[in-house]
């Protein structure tokens, strides 16, 4: 098997041979000589002696002299030594040519001018595409294959494959595979391009077309992407111009954006149009007027229910373990369901199958380490782990989201002797990823993926007992912690049934928990001197389990038609338990739901220009016992080389809701409840989306509009009544149901190439809800923002990357008290209430902030990037952005206090990579 693969590699990756040959020459030959000459002469000698192609600027290098005695040193070491001495780098291209660079950005220039005196001819001619060896013998056949990274063997998704001089073109799927039908002849040339890689060309022949092609791509020098590939962008963040509402993220480039503590994939999406950027307290995606719980987050096939760390400031995904991420902003394919708004699909890395590689990222917030280990020839292992440490940056963010600026009710007489205890809670988050990839044979791959993440705040302590009580009190321990997190895992079986039919079958498990325990326990001596134990406080637990199996099939019938279909079966269980004083169970809800269904979708390309994608999804949901049908449709039409029109529509259902229990002092807590036949209806949305994009080599202008209707929305409040001394509290759960709509327009202007890249994004949006409990009119939804403007600017200067991100959005809506009134109660006390404004009638001040960052690339002498050092400044001009307002009655008057988001915060990061 292995031999066969090797053979394939050798046969197919014709051009990669040249690079490897050059490397071999550099490694296997040894120099034993004394050199004293200009540098260009030294390189001339190397080229002639060892049959190398070396490209450099003779004028510059002629001025540099070397005086060096090499004692049995490899050519590679000698070259490295010399380059190091003069601050140069060498870089081997896929065609085997060695470039001597003063700066990494010189590569493009050297490539263009490598003629005449500048270039030293060696033994091998630079790679030209071989001519056909024999006349074509096969016609109109199908080729399939895989595109992988030459260094790590990691499959490359979204690489574009085309047959030269034809309209045949396709892109690789997430697993790097592709298929092309009706290839005219076996002398055609396959061209492969992918961002961050050097383009490849392969001449087909009678032999190659018999087996799947394995195309290895060489990484491009970490520099500007000068190669223009139509329809393929190389930035951190891209839109798919052929589809409506699709965003793609390249995690490897995330360090070019400002970050506060962690490279954050979900935060990065917030820089694009249609994804709200001003919710510092939620890294979940507010997409097109939707809420984070309406966004399905799928990681390697399993659903992630808690996408945040640290009260929402960071997302729960380690970018080092992630290969690629797509965000579907709406109108998405029938492959996905169960959410009203959007889908975030995250795929983990397969890992380096050639050699072990390691990396570590350090920041003021956390340490993040990963390893990619080839276990044997068939399998690879990826491990990634990060953990925060409670430094000043962590504490700053923690305090921001954990305590309000106003301290509790107060008033005279508050607090007992000694006053309240001053304590600092211990708090941290961590997450870990494990991914094991096992290639059973050439048609079967098994992947096991495991994700675990948790946030914990612990303020448990033993109470200091005052000396005058030590005789009667033995011990009092206060338990005070909040823990929440996820555990998810999947086993995926990829099976290629034939050249054009393959399937992915998953067994998935995902669990979420959110526990809070605030209780006091201890023992005291009674009047007889016998110890008596006591316990009091609240224990609140919410958990969710999701076990499922699903199978997704693809049948690529021909170049014009693909058929995707599949089925799924899930059991979800939720448990919500609220116990007070160990005895009184205030809430105990345990629910479970079986659901199952299937989907089918046709991907039709009747002409080169038109793409149609009709689909349908059927879901049977146990608790309601009903079948839900979701028709979907999307289409795109290429008007000409620059313009694309696109549209999508569909119906979407959601069978569970994330509800927020507000807790100002301890941070809001989220948990999940399943839809049922009574108070939580099944949510339903309809999407209508359309857009046009205009794209040139340099620029992209993308305009999309959307309109969504929503019904079966649920708002939940949990109220604690009887907050009187000594009483047993009662919890009142109120479920309010309503409808809503969201509409908007998004404009993106992106500059894709050059030293300066970046984009400007503008979103005009409106999201309104109507809940009978708040009246008969629509009111602005909590996430409603009218205007949002974002500008992301990145400047590349040799080994430096600078970025500036400025965000502006009009204020979020809020509700305010207008007047107060006081009523006497039966016990002779009084109660004061507010008369409040219309629901969300007022607006908080506009949100804006500027983030800056600078990153310096650390390069090896051979031009490979080994890490970076970066500084990020968050909210540079320290603008006070209001999160919400708090109201309190003090001395009969109402006092409003702003609770603000984070002010100016700097961060340093260091990333290192080893192979």
């Amino acid at each position, binding site marked *: 098997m292995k031999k066969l693969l090797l053979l394939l590699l050798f046969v197919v990756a014709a051009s990669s041979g040249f690079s490897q040959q050059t490397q071999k020459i550099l490694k296997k030959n040894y120099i034993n000589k004394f050199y004293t000459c200009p540098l260009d002469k030294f390189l001339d000698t190397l080229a002639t002696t060892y049959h190398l192609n070396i490209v450099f600027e003779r004028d510059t290098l002629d001025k540099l002299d070397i005086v060096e005695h090499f004692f049995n040193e490899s050519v590679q070491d000698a070259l490295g030594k010399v380059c190091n001495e003069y601050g140069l780098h060498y870089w081997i291209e896929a065609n085997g040519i060695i470039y001597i660079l003063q700066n990494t950005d010189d590569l493009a220039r050297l490539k263009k001018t490598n003629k005449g005196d500048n270039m030293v001819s060696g033994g091998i001619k630079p790679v030209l595409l071989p001519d056909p060896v024999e006349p074509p013998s096969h016609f109109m056949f199908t080729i399939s294959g895989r595109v992988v990274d030459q260094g790590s063997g990691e499959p490359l998704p979204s690489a574009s494959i085309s047959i030269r001089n034809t309209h045949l073109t396709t892109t690789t799927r997430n697993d790097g595979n592709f298929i092309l039908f009706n290839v005219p002849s076996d002398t055609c040339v396959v061209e492969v391009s992918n961002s961050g890689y050097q383009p490849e060309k392969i001449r087909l022949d009678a032999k190659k077309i018999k087996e799947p092609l394995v195309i290895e791509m060489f990484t491009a020098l970490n520099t500007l992407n000068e190669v223009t590939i139509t329809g393929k962008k190389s930035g951190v963040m891209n839109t798919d111009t052929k589809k409506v509402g699709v965003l793609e993220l390249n995690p490897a480039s995330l360090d070019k954006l400002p970050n506060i503590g962690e490279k954050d994939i979900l935060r990065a999406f917030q820089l694009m149009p249609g994804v709200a950027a001003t919710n510092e307290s939620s890294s979940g995606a507010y997409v097109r007027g939707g809420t984070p719980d309406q966004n399905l987050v799928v990681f390697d096939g399993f659903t992630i229910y808690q996408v945040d760390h640290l009260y929402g400031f960071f997302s729960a995904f380690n970018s080092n373990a992630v290969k690629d991420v797509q965000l579907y902003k709406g109108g998405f394919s029938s492959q996905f369901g169960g959410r009203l708004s959007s889908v975030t699909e995250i795929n983990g890395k397969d890992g380096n199958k050639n050699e072990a590689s390691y990396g570590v990222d350090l920041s003021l917030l956390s340490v993040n380490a990963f390893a990619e280990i080839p276990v044997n020839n068939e399998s690879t292992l990826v491990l990634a782990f990060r953990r925060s440490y409670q430094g000043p940056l962590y504490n700053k963010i923690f305090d921001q989201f954990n305590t309000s600026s106003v301290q509790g009710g107060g008033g005279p007489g508050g607090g007992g002797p000694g006053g309240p205890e001053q304590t600092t809670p211990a708090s941290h988050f961590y997450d870990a990823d494990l991914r094991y990839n096992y290639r059973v044979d050439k048609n079967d791959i098994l992947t096991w993926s495991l994700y675990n993440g948790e946030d914990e705040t612990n303020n448990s302590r033993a109470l200091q007992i005052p000396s005058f009580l030590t005789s009667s009190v033995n011990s009092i321990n206060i338990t005070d912690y909040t823990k929440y997190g996820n555990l998810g895992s999947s086993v995926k079986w990829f099976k290629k049934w034939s050249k054009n039919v393959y399937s992915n079958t998953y067994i998935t498990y995902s669990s979420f928990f959110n526990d809070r325990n605030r209780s006091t326990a201890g023992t005291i001596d009674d009047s007889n001197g016998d110890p008596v134990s006591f316990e009091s406080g609240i224990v609140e637990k919410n958990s969710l389990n999701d076990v499922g199996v699903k199978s997704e099939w693809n049948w690529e019938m021909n170049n014009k038609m693909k058929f995707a279909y599949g089925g799924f079966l899930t059991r979800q269980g939720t448990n919500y338990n609220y116990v007070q004083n160990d005895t009184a169970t205030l809430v105990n809800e345990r629910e479970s739901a079986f659901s199952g269904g299937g989907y089918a979708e046709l991907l039709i390309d009747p002409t080169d220009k038109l793409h149609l994608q009709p689909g349908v999804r059927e879901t049977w949901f146990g608790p309601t016992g009903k079948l839900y049908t979701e028709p979907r449709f999307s289409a795109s039409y290429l008007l000409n080389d620059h313009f694309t029109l696109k549209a999508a529509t569909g119906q979407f259902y959601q069978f569970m809701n994330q509800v927020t229990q507000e807790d*100002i002092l301890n941070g809001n807590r989220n948990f999940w409840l399943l839809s049922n036949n009574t108070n939580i209806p099944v949510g339903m949305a309809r999407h209508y989306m359309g857009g046009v994009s205009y794209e040139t080599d340099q620029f992209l202008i993308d305009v999309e509009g959307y309109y969504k209707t929503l019904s079966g929305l649920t708002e939940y409040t949990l109220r604690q009544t009887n907050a009187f001394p000594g009483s047993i509290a009662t919890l009142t759960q109120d479920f309010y149901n309503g409808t809503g709509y969201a509409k908007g*327009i998004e404009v993106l202007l992106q500059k894709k190439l050059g030293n300066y890249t970046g984009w400007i994004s503008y979103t005009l949006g409106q999201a309104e809800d109507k809940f009978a409990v708040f009246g008969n009119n629509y009111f602005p939804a*909590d996430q409603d923002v009218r205007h949002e403007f974002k500008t992301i600017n990145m400047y590349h200067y040799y080994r430096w990357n600078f970025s500036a991100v400025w965000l502006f959005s009009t204020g979020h809506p809020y509700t305010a008290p*207008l007047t107060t009134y006081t009523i006497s109660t039966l016990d002779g006390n009084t109660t004061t209430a507010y008369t*409040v404004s219309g629901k969300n009638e007022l607006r908080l001040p506009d949100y804006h902030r500027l983030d800056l960052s600078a990153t310096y690339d650390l390069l090896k002498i051979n031009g490979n990037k080994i890490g970076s050092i970066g500084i990020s400044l968050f909210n540079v001009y320290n603008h006070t952005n209001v999160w919400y307002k708090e109201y309190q009655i003090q001395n009969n008057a109402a006092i409003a206090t702003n609770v603000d988001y984070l002010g100016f915060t700097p961060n340093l990061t260091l990333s290192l990579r080893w192979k």
Partner: protein
Amino acid sequence: MEIKKHPIKNTLLLLIMAIVLNACKKDVTTNANTNLPVVQGYLVVGKSISVKVTMQKVLTDTAVYGTPIKGLKLNISDGSSTIQLTESSAGTYIYSDSTFLTTGKTYTLKFSYLSYAVSAQTIMPAKPVNFTTQHTGMSIDDLLGNNNPLDTLNVVSWANPDSLNHVLVFNNLDGISFPASTRFGNATTDFELNTNRAAAYPFTQRTFAYYGHYQVILCTVNQEYINLLTSNASGSTSSNLSNQPTNVVNGVGIFTAMQADTLQFLVQ
């Protein structure tokens, strides 16, 4: 580089216009609720009727109650007859014939204020039945005393087959308050508890913040009174605030009927 400006410009313009035009259509809800009168009226069988009407207070007002509204004509109807209340002091309107209130009748308050026709309706619930206490008193220690804080030391009970709303009101009859514990901070000597439609309520170490003689009053109340016990002013933020439920139409506050039964209880 050549950019064909016109087609994109036109499309953009069209789309933007379409959305903007649509977005401008907005329901404007003017909030005149701040002018509504505050009504406080408790109808108790065997007692004279007193209804207080005040204005709402601006947020910075430190007075306990708002400015009384004088010169109103308040009527209460029991379905067959209507009485008119007289203003005894500024903003306080009374009717002293206690025979007007009887169990099971629906009482409707009506008056006009500014341009508002203010009204409220309530039903007189039945008197509590079989209100008893297990012990006539109980002894408590301070926090670190001999009792487990959760032990039930006494139970009061009553008949409640229909799970009606009841509240327990505790009036400390001693003029001077003796705190049982410093734990309760600024707890008041008199307090009330919602019994959550139960037929009994357990007293624990923590039920009382002060020692002394108590008058324990069990009241059958309507839901509007239960709603009053939770104020929208406690723990409220701009993201969770909503209006306090009220049974007063074109007004805020409460107009509710109730009946009571009383026990004596000693906490030592």
